[in-house]
């Protein structure tokens, strides 16, 4: 694949790029494009940060009652 991707092609593949789902050559082409294209770099940073914010929602404090239940599972099964 040529390294001269158009911005539309980069945006089209951007989420798969951030998910590390592209083959090495395509990934390298996108990385190369974003190193020189401020618009696509900005878009990628936004999507990356939004993904990080979404990822935070999986964090929570397990209640003590659950911790006790887990201890009971290990003790009694």
């Amino acid at each position, binding site marked *: 694949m040529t390294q001269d991707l158009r911005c539309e092609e980069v945006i089209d593949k951007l*989420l798969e790029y951030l*998910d*590390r*789902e592209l083959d090495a050559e395509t990934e390298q082409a996108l990385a190369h494009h974003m190193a020189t294209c401020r618009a696509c770099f*900005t*878009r990628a940073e*936004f*999507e990356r*940060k*939004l*993904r990080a*914010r*979404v*990822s*935070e*929602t*999986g*964090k*929570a*404090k*397990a*209640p003590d*009652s*659950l*911790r006790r*239940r*887990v201890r009971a*599972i*290990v003790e009694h*099964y």
Partner: protein
Amino acid sequence: MTKVGEPLRAFFEAEVDRLLDRLYGTALRMTRNGADAEDLVADTLAKAWIKLPELKDRQAFEKWVFRILVNSFISARRKKQARPREVTAEVQCGEDSFSLFETVHQPFLLWWGNPEQELLNKLLREDIEHAVEELPEEFRLVVIMVELWDLSYAEAADALDIPLGTVRSRLARGRSLLQRMLWRQAGEAGIAACNAKGGPR
């Protein structure tokens, strides 16, 4: 009953200690209810404990236990699900894709600063949690797998027993819907309106 030796027991307890908050947080996003989330995680860990001697690769524990969580959630839902599958009006109508970035990143706003960063800064964690929970289940599960648990598309396809292409399309739709919900919430919170005017925040 399977007998678990002391080293394996210590391994299990250490891994559960490390992952419990994350498992519970994920279960909360799946079930949208604290009591159900607690039951789901307890059920998952009981199954994991019993099957633990069958786990050959300890490095794979995290994804293995997550897969049990997903399967437990799906089978519990199937038992309950006499009602039709949840489909929101937005899913029926929202065939077009939606990008938060493209919506915010408009030329007339750019002189004013960094609108997309402003939006990110102002989105509350509660807003995002609510939006994830509001996603229809088929999209929610894929988004949780890829964004919260960092599973590959192939791993998500394997865990859900669906084709890879279905993972891709559900993920794209799920993300689009999620961003649409966040934009709507931003508007309700006055963030979007404030940005659009370019006025004081």
